[in-house]
C-alpha cells in the first residue's frame, strides 16, 4: 500500500477538474491504496453545502463527494487559509475535513509516494 495525494486547485465548475479528481480519489481507494485529497484555493468551494447544479443542467457531483466516507476515503484535507479567503467554516462543508496550515500541508506532502494535481 502506498500513500497517494490528489491535489485540487480549481474552482468547482472549471471544466471537469474536480470531477476528474473525485474519480481519481475513488479509484485509488478502490484499489486499496492510502489515498488523501487536498483542496486548496478555489477548490475548497467544491465542498460547500447547498449547491444544486442540476438547476442549470449540470451534474450534481456533490452527492458523490458525500459518499467518500462510505468508500473508505477518510483523508480529506483543506487549506485553512483558503477557507478563510472564501468566508467558509467547517460547518459550511458537505463532509468532515481536516483544515491544514501551510506547515501541515508540507508535512502531508512529505508523507506521499505519488502526488497528482488535477
Amino acid at each position: 500500500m502506498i500513500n497517494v495525494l490528489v491535489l485540487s486547485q480549481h474552482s468547482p465548475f472549471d471544466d471537469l477538474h474536480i470531477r476528474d479528481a473525485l474519480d481519481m480519489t475513488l479509484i485509488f481507494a478502490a484499489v486499496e491504496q492510502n489515498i488523501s485529497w487536498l483542496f486548496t484555493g478555489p477548490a475548497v468551494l467544491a465542498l460547500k453545502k447547498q449547491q444544486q447544479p442540476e438547476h442549470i443542467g449540470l451534474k450534481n457531483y456533490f452527492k458523490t463527494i458525500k459518499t467518500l466516507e462510505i468508500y473508505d476515503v477518510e483523508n480529506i484535507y483543506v487549506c485553512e487559509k483558503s477557507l478563510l479567503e472564501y468566508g467558509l467554516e467547517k460547518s459550511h462543508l458537505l463532509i468532515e475535513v481536516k483544515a491544514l496550515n501551510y506547515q501541515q500541508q508540507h508535512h502531508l506532502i512529505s508523507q506521499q509516494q505519488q502526488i497528482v494535481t488535477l
Partner: protein
Amino acid sequence: MARFVLSLHSAPSDHDATQRLIKFAHACLNLGHQIDALFLYQHGVFHASEQLNLASDELPINSLWQQLHKQGVNLMLCVTAAEKRGLDINNTGVFTVAGLAEFAMLASDADKWVQFK
C-alpha cells in the same frame, strides 16, 4: 432589435459555459433580437465533434445545439482553429465550417459581440 454575434471558446467538457451560452442565445431570440452567428473558436471547436455523446445524467449538449439549429441560428465552426486542433472538418453535424474572414465580417457588422468561456 439588435444584431448579435456570440462566440464560444471552451471545450464541451466545460458544460457550464456551454449551457450559459445557449441560454443567452435563447434569451436573445425571445427578446426579438437577431443572432448573426454563433461561432466556435479555440477549444470551442470540439463541440463540432460528431461523436459527442454524453451520459444521460449530463447536460444534453447535442440536443441543445439541435434546438438552436432548428430555430435558424447560424452555427459556425472556425476552420483554422479546427485544423490546428486536428478536428475532422468533414463531419461537423449542425455546425457549418466557416473561414475566420466570414466571421470577422459578421462581427464587424453586428451591434454586439459577446464571448463565452
